[in-house]
């Protein structure tokens, strides 16, 4: 598949106001996205996701490195690059609350130079797709948050660009609406062949929608992998050990030393092992104080666990 977005070694620093010290938000990030891919951009707060997204959108100029959208440089050929990309950056705040649904769609398409007739056809299509036909004349202020969010996504789709960037598309939505938005995005990617980049904290979105994920931490890419591959990788090494007694300080120290990535809540110990033989090392630690074992199970990991472990591993290393 053809590459549509190429992020090459971007770096962005901000000067702190008082100390004048430089804070590096993004430090040499590189990745590429192929046409038709749905990629999840993940990372804890302050990892550099927003800086990366805004740089891709041409709203921020990186200090170093370059970004190409369909071959156009996002800084030097900004207007050409923007013909291929649209975004929802602030969710439902991306639309005008005093205008109606239809007026918003017409306004943003006109602002991209779209003719009235052309935009009218697209508005009809999108209102049908997003099930907003009966809200066509409704003032946005009167809509529910879910509908406002759907409208914001529809506005991004109005331009019919190849790439759509979505920053937290399900933030603040109830389970039902979040599911609806996810289904819509899946539909758009499959039917319209759009390339979608989603920046989110909602791991269900990643697991459900994204084929690939780029995980950023402290301004660097720590993983760029196929989502299913990551899940499989962690699934084979993830164990859940049900203990009979609580662990002593000495056991905890040894555990921390030998298995930096572990989770202990109540009497459940979750641990990720590099090789299966490592289970005997855990037994040794538990036998120190004759801690009894109720059960040992290989666990089904979800993407949230994978993400947390990757970020933790990065922090430890």
């Amino acid at each position: 598949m053809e590459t549509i977005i190429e992020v090459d070694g971007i770096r962005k620093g901000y000067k702190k106001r008082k100390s004048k010290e430089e804070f590096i938000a993004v430090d040499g990030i590189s990745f590429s996205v192929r046409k038709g891919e749905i990629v999840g951009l993940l990372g804890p707060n302050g990892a550099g996701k927003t800086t990366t997204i805004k740089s891709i959108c041409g709203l921020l100029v990186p200090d170093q490195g370059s970004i190409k959208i369909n071959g156009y440089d996002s800084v030097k050929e900004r207007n050409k690059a923007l013909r291929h990309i649209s975004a929802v950056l602030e969710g439902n705040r991306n639309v005008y609350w005093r205008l109606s649904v239809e007026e918003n769609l017409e306004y943003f398409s006109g602002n991209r130079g779209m003719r009235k007739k052309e935009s009218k056809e697209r508005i009809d299509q999108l209102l049908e797709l997003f099930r907003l036909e009966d809200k066509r004349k409704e003032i946005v202020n009167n809509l529910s948050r879910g509908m406002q969010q759907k409208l914001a996504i529809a506005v991004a789709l109005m331009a019919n660009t190849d790439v759509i960037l979505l920053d937290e598309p399900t933030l603040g939505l109830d389970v039902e609406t979040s599911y609806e938005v996810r289904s819509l995005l899946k539909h758009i990617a499959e039917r319209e062949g759009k390339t979608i980049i989603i920046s989110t904290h909602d791991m269900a979105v990643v697991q459900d929608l994204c084929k690939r994920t780029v995980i950023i931490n402290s301004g660097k890419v720590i993983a760029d992998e196929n989502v299913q591959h990551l899940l499989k990788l962690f699934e084979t090494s993830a164990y859940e050990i049900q203990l009979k007694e609580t662990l002593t300080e000495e056991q905890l120290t040894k555990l921390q030393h030998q298995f930096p990535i572990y989770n202990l809540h109540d009497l459940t110990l979750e641990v990720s092992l590099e090789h299966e033989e490592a289970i005997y090392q855990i037994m040794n630690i538990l036998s120190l104080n004759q801690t009894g074992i109720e059960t040992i199970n290989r666990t089904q990991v979800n993407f949230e666990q994978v993400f947390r472990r990757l970020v933790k591993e990065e922090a430890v290393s």
Partner: protein
Amino acid sequence: MSAFLQVLRVNTKKEFIEMKRYLPNTLSLLATFYIIFLALFFGIQVVGDPAEASSNTQYIIVNYVFWYFAMMTLQSTGGAITMEAMRGTLEQLYMSPVSAWRILLARVFGMVAIHLSIMVVLIFASMVTTGEWLHLNIGAIIPILLLTIISMIGVSFIIAGISVIFKQVDAFLQILQFILMAFAFVPLSVAPYLVFAPFVKGVDMMRHVMIHGYTLGDFTWVDYSWLVGNGIFYAIIGVIVYRSCERLAMNKGLLGHY
């Protein structure tokens, strides 16, 4: 060009729709200006020289209406940037392949059209109230007014540029009101150096047309040179300042900040 026409269409439409949706706000603005005008008018009647009351009233009408118009045009772009940043829609405007300054220009055209209509209402309301009728020579007024508006738009772009970086420019806009008052009220015969200031030459020529009944033929080529030169100068400076501020905001990551 075709893309800009679409941008112009939707932005003008948006301005009119929002004016309608915020109608009480628009009406109260109009009422406030009219009440201040009445205060000025009756003030002149009470404290002014009765022999010059008629000419003073005419001066007040023209100066006051142009002060209103300049203030609205200049503040509207800065205000629009601040409002868009606050609402969260500013970055969406910058995501358009049509440059943001062109979108802003289209927005200014829409706002100017609205404020021109309000200005006409204010002029007629003032004339009816005072019984003083100005020379409304449309053939002379329109070309001079259009050239005057160019320099106003130029300055409005400078303010828009400052707003892109600082966002909260309310205090600055309040001070600006008084500077604009000086530009609109002080005639060039009293302060000739103000010819360098934006739109002062235009307002001065408008006074000659509306109060003294001048026609286009009564002005010299020097007058027109100043008028055109002033407009072009401030329009170019405005766009240059705005684009520099925009670049700075993109480099420093200030675009979406409020």
